[in-house]
């Protein structure tokens, strides 16, 4: 055992290795921070330590430059936030409804239903894009709000997996809530709906927040479905917008892009902090990112 006063010397190589790793992990994000405040707005003029600081890059996201292209950053940000919040809310709601049924009721096809939902989950959603595109195209001819280039259509497509993706996680949690609680509520005359709202859901707040936050962050990150369904730049979500923003002219928009990246991270990081305590146990349960 090492002497506590001496432990820094003992483990110097550990610190060295970790510091190297920290550099690799932290430098790119740090560089974005400096680029966002760098007075030289081009990629070639950017450096780790800016020569002069400015807030112009942030201003460029909100105010149209004279003679410059129209700025949609606020719209992208708002679209992303609205759709992420709504998706998180409805994902939790739909998932909890289904999990409650599979956890508390015994009905025909229950076992098959659960297995089926598990299998469905394995079908990568991306592969359905052609079909989803055509369905949304046709639906739009009848209900315009569910057609192409509409955020509502995107939301509905996101929600299609709400039941299957989190069913097992939520049902597992619901199973761990003692059935005696339901029982006593039922003796007091509560209906199944009242037990769901009044007993189960308040007790399930931890799992509800985890599922909601994962849905929230996942939506903020989603690129491919949005790129297929949304067509015009004013309706884009943040990933699409930022990609389009730098896609053509990386060189001259670099400073504003970095500023946009900084702002775009805020919701996801708030979400991450909020669920951090649940994440490690959630990770080992098999939900995957990256």
């Amino acid at each position, binding site marked *: 055992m090492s002497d*506590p006063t001496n*432990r*820094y010397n003992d483990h110097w190589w*550990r610190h060295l290795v*970790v510091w190297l*790793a*920290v550099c690799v992990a932290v430098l*790119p*994000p740090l*560089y974005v921070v400096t680029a966002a405040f760098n007075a030289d707005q081009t*990629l070639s003029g950017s450096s*780790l330590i800016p020569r002069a600081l400015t807030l112009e890059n942030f201003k460029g996201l909100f105010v149209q430059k004279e003679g410059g292209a129209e700025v949609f950053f606020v719209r992208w940000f708002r679209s992303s936030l609205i759709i992420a919040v709504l998706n998180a809310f409805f994902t939790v709601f*739909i998932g909890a*409804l*289904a999990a409650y*049924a*599979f956890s508390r*009721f015994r009905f025909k096809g229950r076992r098959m239903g659960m297995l089926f939902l598990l299998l*469905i989950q*394995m079908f*990568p*959603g991306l*592969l*359905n*894009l*052609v*079909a*989803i595109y055509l*369905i949304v195209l046709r639906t739009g*001819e*009848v*209900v315009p709000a569910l057609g192409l280039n509409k955020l509502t259509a995107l939301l509905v497509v996101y929600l299609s997996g*709400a039941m*299957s993706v989190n069913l097992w996680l939520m049902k597992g949690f619901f*199973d761990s809530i003692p059935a005696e609680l339901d029982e006593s509520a039922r003796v007091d005359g509560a*209906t199944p709906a*009242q037990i769901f*709202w009044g007993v189960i*859901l*308040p*007790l399930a707040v931890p799992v509800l*927040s*985890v599922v909601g936050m994962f849905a929230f962050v996942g939506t*903020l*990150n989603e*690129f491919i479905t949005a790129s297929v369904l949304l067509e015009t730049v004013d309706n884009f979500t943040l*990933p699409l917008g930022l990609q389009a923003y*730098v896609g053509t002219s*990386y060189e001259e928009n670099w400073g504003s892009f*970095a500023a946009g*990246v900084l702002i775009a*991270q805020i919701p996801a*990081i708030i979400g991450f902090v909020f669920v951090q305590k*649940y994440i*490690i146990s*959630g*990770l080992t349960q098999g939900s*995957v*990112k*990256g």
Partner: protein
Amino acid sequence: MSQSVRYRPSFLAWLISLFSGVGGLIVKLMMLCILNGITGWAIIVLFTQERVIWALGTTAVLASIDFIYLVPNRFLPAKFILPGSVLLVAYLIVPIFFTINTAFQEYSTGHVLTKAEAIQTNLEQNAVQGDRYFRMAPARDSSGALVLVLVDDSTGDAFIGRRSGLEEIDPTTVEVDDFGDILPPTGYSALIGDEFFEIDAELAAFEVPLENGGVVRTEGLSGAYDSAPGFQFDPTSGALVASDTGVEYLDNGRGSFESADGEQLVVGWREYIGFDNFTAVITNPLVRQPFLRAFAWTIGFAGSTVLLSFAIGLFLAKVIDKQNLRGKKVYRSLLVIPYAIPGFLSLLVFKGLLNDDFGLINKLLPFDPPWLFDPWWARLSVIMVSVWLTTPYFLLVCMGALQSIPTELVEAARVDGAGRWQVFRKVTLPLLMVVVTPLLIASFAYNFNNFNNVYLLTGGGPTTEDQSVAGATDILISYTYKLAFESGKGQDYGLASAISIYIFFIVAAMSASGFLRSKALENMK
């Protein structure tokens, strides 16, 4: 999730419980009303568009939903499962069937119409201008409908052209004034002044069908010409016959009209072609080569990303996982930063960092590798960035797993004289792998379809020597995406769907093996 429930009445919990009575009932009824309103509107629109089957089907679905929710104390499980199921069926299960159906069809650029539409389009598009020119005056008949008064420029015959056909009239009833303008016969009223502007669009689209299959179209406000179809449709043989050369174009069974010497008409139709899309991956060298290259790279990319991330994550976890190492928590928080940032942002940032001329990485390096412009450097870039994104995940997993390994086992091995490396190889690693293997498989399956990491960084490029749709860093899923949505060589939904189904089987096999190991099925009481 933690198995024990610690109940702490929070604001959120209190808020939720408010719905457990009258409030919930009101919300439920309101949602039903909204649903009925929107769907009812859709049904009306469907009827007006004469899609009767769809309208009836939607009505039936809506009626059963209403029935299930409005009958108290029955269909309880259905009440809870229905909202998710409706969305699941509409946007997940139907698309799956659609994808399977499409995979068996020739469905690509030039093959999007039905056969009847394709015949019609071929007849219209290939029309050739006829030899007759008419002086024309738009007029209204006694019922107010728009007609054309026509005088054949060469013969002087006069006609009334309607949408239903051409009717010959006595040429003497039609007067031609000094300017060459036609005055309509009695019973028809000439258009005057502003009326011309109002019918402008209507007139341009006005077509008078002829008996030979051609049409008379207007030209400007005072002329018209006839056009004859370039093809005749022969209903007995089902062939299109070219009017000028007499060449027969027959249905070739693959969604095209084809002549005896192999010439195909541009406009074809969707046609079932059996397993051809699936076998094209093996038999057609133009498809086989990019497919196999994308397939090999997908496995290489996903495999190396997962293994490298796991190795580095485990190494760092072992380094940090030392009792009373100073700053352990700070290190962990700093190392997890790449995981906390939305992936798409990191990818776009790296695209700038790896920029050839101006990127930070090339500024720091003494030489300038063409990171995103050379096939092998681009592949390296994709793997490096993916490892950067994925390592924190495995770091967290390994730190958790290492802590769960009982210290008695390690100490027992040490007492028996095992070295550090031996303990790691023979005790720690096997125990760790029990926990981590399903996650490795899941991560591999995830990266197998990691569209973002490829598409946002390199766009699948750079293009390879054979100039195919699949670039050097295209994995199967991005290759499929390009085939269906953005190929400069025309889109091929059929082939894209077939490849999608291959991907499904590969991923399902991987998921199944991971799933069986994770014993999740035991939870199913």
